[in-house]
């Protein structure tokens, strides 16, 4: 059952990801990305991480992508202009080659290190909180708070016409 769901969501994620990249209309890309993100959230859930799954939807789908959509609507972007040119084609070719190389390399490594899932695995929110607020990650966690604040202020400063 779980495996079937996994392959279903994996397929959805991949298809949606392809749409993200291939669509010329950024709004469609954005919605496709939302679909990818939600499928990934489902996969996270299937991998036994409900907290991360929820946070994935809340943060990515709920906050970040809404921000993207907002900007798209604000700037009223419709379609990417076609501009046939050799430069783009060369770039695409080189990029494709490099990505293929990357996939080959990483794929070999990853397939070489197959590993069965751990037997005891508890990713409940309580366990997450315990590790997140342990001295190992606590300071990093607090630092992210500062980071978010800085990003907030920075975004306001950058995007505002006049302060």
């Amino acid at each position, binding site marked *: 059952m779980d495996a079937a769901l996994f392959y279903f969501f994996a397929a959805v994620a991949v298809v949606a990801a392809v749409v993200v990249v291939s669509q010329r209309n950024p*709004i469609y890309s954005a*919605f496709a990305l*939302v679909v990818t993100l*939600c499928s990934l*959230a489902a996969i996270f859930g299937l991998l036994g991480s*409900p*907290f991360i*799954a*929820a*946070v994935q*939807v*809340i943060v990515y*789908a*709920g*906050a970040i992508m*809404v921000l993207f*959509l*907002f900007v798209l*609507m*604000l700037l009223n972007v419709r379609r990417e202009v076609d501009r046939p040119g050799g430069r783009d084609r060369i770039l695409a070719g080189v990029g494709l080659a490099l990505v293929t190389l990357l996939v080959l390399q990483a794929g070999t490594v990853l397939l070489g290190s197959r590993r069965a899932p751990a037997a005891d695995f508890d990713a*409940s*929110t309580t366990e997450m909180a315990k590790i997140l607020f342990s001295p190992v990650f606590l300071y990093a966690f607090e630092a992210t708070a500062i980071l978010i604040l800085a990003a907030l202020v920075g975004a306001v400063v950058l995007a505002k016409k006049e302060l």
Partner: protein
Amino acid sequence: MTLSPLAQEALVATLTILLVVGTLLGLFSVMTWVERRTLAFMQFRLGPNRAGPFGILQPIADGIKLFFKEEVMPAAADKWAFLAAPVVAVTTALLATAVIPYGPPFTLGRWSVLPEWLRGRTLQIQIADLEVGLLWIFAIAALGVYGVVLAGWAANNKYSLLGGLRSSAQMFSYELALTLSWIGLIMAAGSFRIDDIVAAQAGWFVRWNAIAQFPAFLVYFVAATAEVARIPFDLPEGETEIVAGFHTEYSSMRFALVQMAEYINMITVSVLAANLFLGGWHSGIPWVPETLGGFPLGFVWWGAKVAFVLFVFIWLRGTLPRFRYDQLMHFGWKVLIPVAGVWVMGYSVWIVLGSR
């Protein structure tokens, strides 16, 4: 007939889903009528009273009317997005209801009408009992924005677009306050699971979060009102400014779907208010028995609370004027969120001090 345990589970789950969704859809129709009648009484009018006794069949009449109306789609609209938006809205609205418990757990009697394996079984009307229940609701509420945004954008109409932008801005502004108001409850119960939060409110009614965490309740109620875009926060559809907001271009059954999503959201927040803040299915007085002749009284208390909250929403609509948009944003960001934040901080200090 005997079924394998897995099949039993599946059957119960399917029945629960059908029950919940069916009830919600039914309640939606009833609510449109109740709202119109109540408002009419408040305004010394009669309201719809023609179709059936007291006009109770009015929703059916409305449904038939909408069903037979012509569907209009703007020529410049983005077809797929335009069609998908109401579906997304209703889907997210229904998804959010999945983790909410409707009423107390109850034990079926050994009635002979039931198949053998169901007799004496303890059930609860809840589709999924997730450990991260409240987070789930938060996540789905976050997704709810998409229906609105999509609808606003797809119609290719400036009123729709502005309405969509306004709605989504309003929704995620107030979502923050809404969520912050839950943090105190989560800390008190030590769990995201809604059943646990309800359980934490058992006993005397002073333990209800509406009283024990009054500021949080206030924030929740205000934010929830804004979240479902009810008066006084119904700017997205402020007809004096932007016609009907994001659903300006919708008609016929698609309009009905949009309406349905809004009403389901309202019911959801009311149920959540009853569950999270008003003690759920607990009577608030310890010596009141839990069952009466095998019937769990919790359903009565719980239903009364939900009905009360729904009534308050309608009552507000009959009483308050609409906010201006800048006031709305100002209120959300500079009043509600700070209040909720201070409450969370104060409450956590209280917990730490209390645990010493």
